[in-house]
């Protein structure tokens, strides 16, 4: 698989069906260090299914997914524990990732304008703030590959812009980011647009060219 050489993510011929409904029928996607990839497609096209399979939280029926380096996955709906505070979530995941400190959490909280909520229970957070916590939990261990399923749902404009600052910082440090998005106007931000339709992926650059190594 020549195209996958040096890739952080290489998915090939991924198939997935829910009963008789075939969602993915041979989807392939490759991403290299430092690339920002958008997965786009209509509602029900299978974008979230694809991301779950890439993340390893859902089994594919057939196909191959190879990931190198540390992986971070931010699910579409925040997966939190209502009774725990933001800080307790951060400590729980710091234990999971075996982190030596919460320094990175503090940095991310600062970048996303999140610091004042750290003592609040998740149940008391607004939708956008829950999503910030959801995102930070995926970023806490500074992963090499980040899979984000519509990560800015509920964000206000200021937070949305801060989110892109975080993404720019990650890219500058060679991290690979795959984002499911519906926002057409932000297409120019991405290196690769992966169109998911009829169960397969067609990759192009924002200018419409076929990227050499992305599919």
């Amino acid at each position, binding site marked *: 698989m020549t195209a996958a050489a040096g890739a952080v993510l290489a998915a090939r011929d991924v198939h997935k069906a829910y009963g008789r409904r075939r969602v993915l029928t041979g989807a392939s996607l490759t991403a290299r260090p430092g690339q920002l990839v958008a997965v786009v497609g209509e509602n029900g096209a299978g974008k979230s299914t694809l991301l779950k399979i890439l993340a390893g939280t859902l089994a594919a029926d057939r196909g191959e997914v190879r990931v190198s380096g540390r992986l971070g996955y931010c699910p579409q709906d925040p997966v939190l524990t209502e009774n725990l505070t933001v800080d307790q979530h951060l*400590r729980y995941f710091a234990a999971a990732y075996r982190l030596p400190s919460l320094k990175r959490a503090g940095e991310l909280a600062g970048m996303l304008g999140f610091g004042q909520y750290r003592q609040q229970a998740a149940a008391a957070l607004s939708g956008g703030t829950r999503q910030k916590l959801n995102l930070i939990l995926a970023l806490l261990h500074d992963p090499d590959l980040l899979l984000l399923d519509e990560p800015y749902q509920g964000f206000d404009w200021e937070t949305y812009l801060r989110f892109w600052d975080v993404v720019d910082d990650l890219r500058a440090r060679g991290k690979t980011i795959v984002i499911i998005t519906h926002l057409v106007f932000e297409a120019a931000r991405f290196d690769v647009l992966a169109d998911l339709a009829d169960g397969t992926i067609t990759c192009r650059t924002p200018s419409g060219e076929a990227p050499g190594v992305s599919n």
Partner: protein
Amino acid sequence: MSATDLARPAAGPPAAAGPAAYRQFPTAWRFALRNQARNRLAGLLLVAFVPVWYLLMLVIAGHRPLSFRLYATGRVLTVDAGHLTLISAGLNSLTIIVGFAVFAAIRKTLAFDQRLVFAGYRHATLIAAKTLAIAMVAAVVALYTAAVLLAFWRPGPAEWAAILAGFAVMALTYGALGLLLGVLVRGDLEGFFLIIMGGLMDTFLQNPLGNPLANKPVLAWFPSFGPMQFAVGGSFGHAYLWGHLALGLAWAAAFAAGGLVIFRIRTRGLTRRREPRDR
């Protein structure tokens, strides 16, 4: 190529050198305990339901003498029907409170636990921490329930200890059942129904006052049989039936084992092997 050919790393390993700031077991244990303790409805049931239930059952049963044959020893005991009913009521309230508290806590955090495992939490650590938290909650609730019983009846210290032991095993059993149902059933309603109806049937049928056939062999197959026999034997017959207490523990162990196996299956990722990236 099959799906089992998927090769991926988990979200870990450590991002930086140096000892982890938060050890996995104490962190998981502390937060599991906190999560259990913050169930306000269970707390309300504990504070309000237990004494009211004792009082109600005592009023209904009265203080008349009741003769029955204790299944475990074969001896016919003549006891105060109200006192016997207090034991049965205590066991019953434990089934509901502990079963409900553990079921709700496990159910609410299942997806979160899956995310923790995906992030690198060791399964065995998470399972051990949750088990310990459940056992501690069960023990505290049993102690409280046995203590409230003293407001209605003052047995001797040894007799009360037998009741406490029976209560503790009962709480462990239904805590383990709450764990099993929490990872097994699809909806909240099914879980609550199974715990409430199961607990009612289980404990009601063991009480000879409510069920004249309470010494039928089939009842030995019910989870509350062992704790009920131990508590009644110890408090009325000066017989400490350790084998029956162990039988209750066996039920607890079986429910817990089933629940933890399903918990492990439902929270596991698809990690096969790591491909560490050169850094």
